[in-house]
């Protein structure tokens, strides 16, 4: 690959864990560590393909999860005296649970700020020629009730269904993210609303799929398209965000 793209849409390991916990509907204080670890590693596999800057942080959390898992398997009174003074004989999951609860509050607080930001972005002051400087924020949330993890979920399904056919000849086919973005925009503006799956319809290789997915994420980041989901496990729809006038 010629160049790498780094995205900061993946919010980090705590965000992913929270997503998993909410998705599996489990108690934050009583995390079924085996199940969650397994799911987490599953995601990590997908994430690795995106060449993320933050993969290191995700690996640290994976190690933490596995460490907790191991500790849960050990009898409560551990043989290793060095372990116990640190852990204070409490549930090995306690610390993680605290972190997650703190993180949840941060998410709530950032939601509040985001709402204010959106509202304030529609208010102009009369500061002469400063219009160009004014930071305008999109008035519509392109990810409505979705999180980036929902998109990764959907992408995983597509990825899993991919059967790379034996290749007879090797036509050099390189599609850049930029090109993909244009194609997706064309498709969405022509059809108005496109199923998430359909975006990947014609794409046959893993690399192209990833390129395509990154293009979708980039378009969402630029707020050129938005993604929505009608029901919890329903199909994800890609569309062009409504004009601000409707929401103001």
């Amino acid at each position, binding site marked *: 690959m010629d160049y790498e793209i780094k995205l*900061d*849409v993946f*919010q*980090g*390991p*705590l965000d992913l864990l929270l997503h998993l916990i909410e998705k599996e509907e489990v108690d934050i204080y009583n995390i079924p560590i085996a199940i969650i670890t397994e799911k987490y590693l599953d995601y990590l596999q997908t994430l690795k393909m995106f060449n993320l800057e*933050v993969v290191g*942080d995700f690996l640290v*959390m994976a190690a933490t999860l596995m460490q907790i898992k191991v500790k849960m398997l050990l009898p409560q009174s551990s043989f290793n005296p060095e372990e116990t003074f640190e852990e204070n004989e409490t549930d090995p999951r306690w610390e993680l649970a*605290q*972190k997650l*609860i*703190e*993180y949840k*509050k*941060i*998410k*709530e*607080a*950032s939601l*509040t*700020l*985001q709402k*204010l*930001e*959106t*509202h*304030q*972005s*529609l*208010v*102009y*002051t*009369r*500061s*002469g020629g*400063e*219009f*160009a400087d*004014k*930071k*305008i*924020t*999109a*008035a519509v949330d392109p990810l409505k009730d979705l999180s*980036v993890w929902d998109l990764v979920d959907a992408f995983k399904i597509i990825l899993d269904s991919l059967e790379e056919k034996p290749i007879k000849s090797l036509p050099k086919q390189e599609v850049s993210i930029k090109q993909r973005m244009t194609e997706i925009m064309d498709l969405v503006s022509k059809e108005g609303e496109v199923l998430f799956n359909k975006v990947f319809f014609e794409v046959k290789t893993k690399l192209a799929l990833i390129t395509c997915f990154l293009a979708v994420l980039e378009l969402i*980041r*630029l*707020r050129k398209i938005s993604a929505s989901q009608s029901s919890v496990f329903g199909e994800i729809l890609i569309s062009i965000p409504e*004009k*601000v*006038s409707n929401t*103001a």
Partner: protein
Amino acid sequence: MNLIMARAIIESLIFTSSEPITGKTIGEIVGISEHTVKQIVFDLIEEYQRSKRGIQILEVANGFQFCTHPECAPYIEKLQKVPRNVGLSQAAIETLAIVTYKQPITKAEIEALRGVSVESAITTLVDKGLIEEAGRKDSPGRPIMYRTTKQFLKYFGLNDLTELPKIPEWIGQNAAPNTETEPSEAETDVGIN
């Protein structure tokens, strides 16, 4: 000077000021008490609201400022052809939320909470003038601490930090936005002793 005249003058002062103008400044110029100024301004604010005008006076960062009504935004944008910038990224807004509620706070402390590096988010926020350095923490390495700025209040249309909703049972030293660390108008160095 009668009340009607004072009202007109105050309105003109807010109108010509591109930055939020404080009640104190207005009071000094007009030669009346800050208290009276505020009463007159609140009266003006109400009048603009009542008559559903396209402009309004907002109380932002402890001052008053003329602003347009949010519903007019799409049309203003058509006229000004302003590029539709995206807002702060999720990483930046989360980092900002932490600084807002836990200030002053160091980078390492933010990272511990987010579980991920915040280097670039901090750079973005400092560049945008939403956070600033607030001296150094008295701990090994004397790390830099951060706090929100006046620009932060303007960006989010807040008068002061207490206007933000409180987060219940937030673990940590500052359970709510702390007024003590509220950015002062004098943007001088607050640094190290």
